[in-house]
């Protein structure tokens, strides 16, 4: 009966759309993994074979590069919702190769809504060029008598271990020894830093 056939055809078409959306969402996630989340296991070949096995290599490369470029634009500008909608609408209105289909725009929009914070965090982390303080542990040791080195250490000594590391690299550990005088000096400097922070950051 014509009615049922029509519904059947529409359902099939919808399923194909859903599949296309899923593949595109997975492609966007894969690109993010590779470009922003340092996942070295994801390659362009892997993405093609998993998500678009039927597509010709040239066609896939074009799709991949287009999505990657769009993601980069969105991430660099750290677009909010309004900016993103304006950006995507402009792209869908464009004809030819630079344009986007409505489904592609929807996939990008959904992706950015869920991944914006994480992508931004990754970009911020990459802008830190010095090692960051990943961890800190300490203990206080007691000394029984003056140390033979001549520095009078006849009191408690704090041993502080700093864990330092750059993004993607292994940690380096630095262990420092502080007597009470030194700890007070460091705390005094930190109080100066705090004062500076309060003056500049909270007044803007």
């Amino acid at each position, binding site marked *: 009966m014509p009615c049922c056939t029509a519904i059947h055809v529409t359902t099939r078409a919808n399923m194909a759309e859903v599949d296309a959306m899923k593949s595109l969402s997975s492609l966007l996630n894969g690109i993010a993994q590779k470009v922003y989340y340092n996942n070295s296991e994801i390659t362009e070949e892997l993405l093609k074979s998993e998500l678009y096995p039927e597509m010709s290599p040239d066609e896939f490369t074009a799709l991949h590069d287009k999505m990657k470029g769009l993601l980069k634009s969105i991430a660099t500008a*750290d677009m909010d919702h309004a900016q993103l909608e304006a950006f995507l609408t402009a792209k869908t209105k464009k004809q030819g190769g630079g344009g986007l289909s409505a489904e592609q725009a929807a996939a990008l929009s959904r992706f950015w809504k869920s991944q914006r914070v994480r992508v931004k965090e990754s970009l911020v982390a990459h*802008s830190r060029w010095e090692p960051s*303080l990943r961890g800190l542990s300490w203990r206080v040791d007691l000394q*029984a*008598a003056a140390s*033979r080195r001549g520095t009078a250490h006849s009191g408690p000594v704090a041993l502080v271990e700093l864990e330092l590391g750059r993004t993607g690299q292994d940690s380096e550990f*630095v*262990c420092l020894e*502080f007597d009470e005088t030194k700890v007070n000096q460091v705390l005094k400097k*930190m109080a100066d830093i705090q004062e500076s922070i309060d003056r500049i950051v909270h007044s803007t």
Partner: protein
Amino acid sequence: MQLHFTKDVLPDSVGTDFQNLNKLNEQQFHHLIEILFQFLLEPKETERFMQQLTEFAGEHGMSAGPLRNLMKSVLLVPQGALKKNLTGEQIKEDLLTLGTHPSPLCLRHYAALTRLAVGQTLMVNQLVDMEWKFGVTVGTSEIQKLGTVFLQLKLVVRKGNSTENVYMELTLPQFYNFLHEMERAKASMECFS
């Protein structure tokens, strides 16, 4: 006195403290050792350690002050032993030299402690100076608009005969965490001085 855990000359009070340990009965001794090793496993918990000692003193009709001083002497042994990687045998010898009976409980606890201590850095350096600067990153080549505060620290560290600069960059939360931990370390040192 020839001791493994330290090359320093111990004041007489330390010897007396170890003798006083012998005055405790077995149950009291075991309880005190448990308190001691709990602290050694979690060295930041100074307040808890002091609290437990005060409670112990109350329970057994002792004064808290002398007990704390006694524990400070007792702490020298495991702390020194860990730094020098002493064996159970060497600790046994030291405890005998100090005039106290080496209990199997102590040695078992110490063995557990050394297993945790393996892999800890033993190269300890002195902090000579600390310099800092901070600013706000407003943009980078990767992201156009940003507003993150970063603090750069340069620690001048003495390693042997030379100094070395150690650089690090902290976010504000990391700085406040660092400050908090240094304040805790200071509070802990005050408990012990």
